[in-house]
């Protein structure tokens, strides 16, 4: 199965405040993405999602599997995801390359893991186990990070590239995360993107950050900033068009605002499309 069947155009992250409006008005959107965990237990949210999936290509984006943890993904969580994927047959399934649990502790966040060869062996096994369970490849997303393991043996881009080579997974490239890391940690954005196999990049995320105590925090609470739009332009020029998502999770604006951001991304994708045609 291919890495992603999402169209190479812009979509939005669909959150609870907009479920009804999107179903009623059916705005022109290339596709929508939802957080997988919100639909694990079925019930009313899943009934809604089935209706959405009849109208739009769907991407399931997980925030809880924690494939970069020392422990294997939790069996119950993986089984829930498998049921959801089987029920919806989404165009793409993604997770974060992050740490979130140990044998004794869960932190519901997307924490950076050590980028070492030992970690790579373990994480490759977790990704393979997940893809075997889902019977399809997944996309793995790069993180925004505020701390770093002091003994990293490679950077996140090299780690992701090696995961692609070993497991056949794809990459979800979050440009806001990269930008935030550049400002906070001095991450070399060009080096990270250059390390990624272009054909494995199946999706791009864009979002807005906020500022807290001198750090840029990836809050998904703002429009996409100019510097990130610029990074998006150069990335699309380099890679060609990719399915692109606008994420907004805190202080969620009216649907029009969200669709307006998606239209901006769509315009950049189309510029590039014309370049290709010319």
């Amino acid at each position: 199965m291919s890495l992603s069947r999402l169209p190479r155009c812009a979509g939005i992250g669909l959150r609870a405040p907009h479920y009804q409006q999107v179903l009623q008005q059916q705005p022109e959107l290339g596709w929508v993405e939802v957080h997988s965990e919100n639909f694990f237990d079925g019930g009313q949210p899943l009934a809604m999602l089935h209706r959405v999936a009849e109208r739009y290509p769907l991407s399931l984006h997980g925030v809880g599997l924690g494939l970069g943890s020392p422990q294997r993904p939790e069996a119950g969580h993986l089984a829930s995801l498998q049921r959801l994927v089987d029920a919806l047959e989404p165009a793409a399934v993604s997770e974060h390359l992050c740490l979130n649990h140990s044998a004794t502790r869960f932190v519901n966040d997307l924490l950076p893991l050590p980028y070492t060869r030992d970690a790579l062996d373990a994480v490759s096994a977790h990704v393979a186990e997940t893809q075997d369970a889902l019977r399809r490849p997944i996309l793995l997303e790069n993180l925004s990070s505020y701390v770093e393991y002091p003994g990293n043996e490679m950077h996140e881009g090299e780690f992701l590239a090696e995961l692609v080579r070993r497991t056949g997974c794809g990459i979800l490239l979050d440009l806001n995360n990269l930008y935030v890391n550049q400002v906070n940690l001095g991450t070399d954005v060009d080096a990270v993107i250059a390390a990624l196999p272009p054909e494995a990049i199946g999706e791009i995320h864009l979002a807005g950050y906020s500022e807290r105590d001198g750090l840029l925090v990836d809050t998904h609470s703002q429009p996409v900033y100019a510097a990130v739009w610029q990074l998006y332009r150069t990335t699309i020029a380099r890679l060609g068009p990719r399915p692109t998502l606008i994420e907004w999770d805190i202080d969620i604006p009216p649907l029009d605002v969200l669709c307006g951001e998606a239209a901006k991304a769509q315009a950049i994708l189309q510029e590039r499309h014309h370049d290709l045609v010319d």
Partner: protein
Amino acid sequence: MISWTDWSSALLEAIADPERHAPSANLGLSAAGLAVYRNNYRVGLIDTLAYAYPVLGQLVGEEFFRALAREYVKRHASHSGNLHRYGAAFGDFLDSFEHVRHLPYLADVARLEWHVHRSYYAADATPPDLAVLATLEPERWGELRFGLADDVAVVASPWPIATIWLAHQPDSGVPLPERLGDHAETALVTRSAGTVKVERLDPATAAFLLALQQGAMLEAATNAALQPDPSFDLQALLGQLFERALLSSIQLPGGPS
């Protein structure tokens, strides 16, 4: 150099339990970076509780609710990558928390809200197979066990919890009782066409459904209902329960209880 697994475990502890796990220098954690994660952890779980317990927030006010939630988060770690399961023990926490002792109904309202929250996410009920009844002689039907559907729950309280809950729903038109201690209530939680509903049960129905929820056999549940109401009509109630799809299983005698 600390191993990747030890660093990972230490980072998780330093975020979730800052009072007991001051990070050691060899983790290489910046104070500002760690503060972002500690804040995310605390605020994320408090927001999760606020989402699951909206009536409680109205009853005590947002600021006090968040202070309560903060205390709960200190005592109750998350155990799942799925946040919708966080907060199940909030009612029990309120029972034991001395600063809300003057609001004795709060814990039962919390237990009701948890069931409302779970009902919304519960799987759709599949109706039980009535054909199994034909395999049993009618004189043994008293030994059957009926299971409530996943979106159904019964919560009993010495306080008018259903009325309190209803009074805090927009446009319900239900006024708050003037004196909260005046009457006990048993609340029924159900979901229909996507909307979770809370209703007050009469004493006989309450006794019957509580007994079913606890796994009692039909005869024992009926006897429980006959105590408050000798004219309890089992057939009429069962008819309603099936019509509203509130039952999801029928267990024959001898099956696992």
